[in-house]
């Protein structure tokens, strides 16, 4: 399974539809302080099933919905999709059959969040299983958030062993 594209709309500072193609090798993301780079990383972690609001730097999960600016009103829905290429058929059951898999997560104020795979509503657990088996999960050590690179060094020995297990 390969990751191909990330699509966002109404997610944090990305209020307009945004597409990020993730190609082979090294994809650099640059820009001034506060422009939204780390928000992109959080969108990726969120669509992969991240359920801890604190890891999205918010107080509650609804903080990921665009909160408005002096010129634009707040939104009530945030949506992120991740397009996966499964032409090698390595995705776990029941997704093995399709050559392309589009995972979508949507959240609406006061209504909670919902997951869809190729347009069909699925449970959060299904999405987490998909990522845990085929790829990396939302808690994978391969997703290093800003300022957290030395977290592994400063963690207690048992926490480090847990990270090792996540990556097993």
């Amino acid at each position: 399974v390969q990751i191909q594209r990330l699509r966002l709309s109404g997610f944090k500072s990305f209020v307009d539809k945004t597409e990020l193609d993730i190609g082979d090798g090294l994809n650099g993301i640059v820009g001034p302080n506060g422009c939204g780079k780390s928000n992109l990383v959080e969108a990726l972690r969120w669509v992969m099933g991240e359920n801890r609001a604190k890891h999205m730097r918010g107080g509650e999960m609804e903080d990921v919905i665009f909160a408005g600016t002096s010129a634009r009103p707040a939104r009530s829905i945030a949506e992120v999709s991740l397009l996966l290429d499964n032409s090698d058929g390595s995705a776990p059951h029941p997704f093995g059959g399709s050559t392309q898999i589009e995972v979508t997560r949507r959240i609406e104020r006061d209504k909670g969040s919902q997951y869809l795979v190729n347009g069909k509503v699925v449970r959060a657990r299904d999405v987490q299983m998909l990522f845990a088996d085929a790829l990396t999960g939302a808690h994978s050590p391969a997703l290093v958030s800003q300022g957290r690179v030395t977290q592994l060094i400063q963690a207690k020995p048992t926490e480090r062993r847990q990270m090792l297990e996540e990556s097993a």
Partner: protein
Amino acid sequence: ARERIIKTFDAVNTHFQHLFKRLFGGGEAYLKLIDSEDPLDAGLEIFAQPPGKSLQSLSLLSGGEQTLTALSMIFAMFLANPAPVCVLDEVDAPLDDANVDRVCGLLEEMSAQCATRFLIITHHRMTMARMDRLYGVTMAERGISQLVSVNLAAQGDLLAHTKAA
């Protein structure tokens, strides 16, 4: 589950020792499961000794040395069980230019060896120059993020733009 963690531990430990020597240009480092006979209960201790220095506790290492040790560990876990995507958000911030160069060299090698795709956020000019492709995020309208893809010829302009913003 026990066999799996032991197998993973061995693979990660081997990669970690090799990557640490590569990033530090020498020295010694290794992992150990401590505090319990049962690997599912044990703690994971990290021993790191930069070249020419005595073995001390991790907390005495400098900011840059801790970052290089952590990156060796992250990449070791990663090589033991490759993931399709790896995201690094400003991990080069505490590094001097020589170490930025070494980390970028390692990233180039890893991306040539495996199918993993990397998302690398940076403010460092040297790192920007080593990317295969570059995306700029701007806030032309205050508070609204927009993504622009930068063709490498314009990479020089973007660097100037970041400077002037």
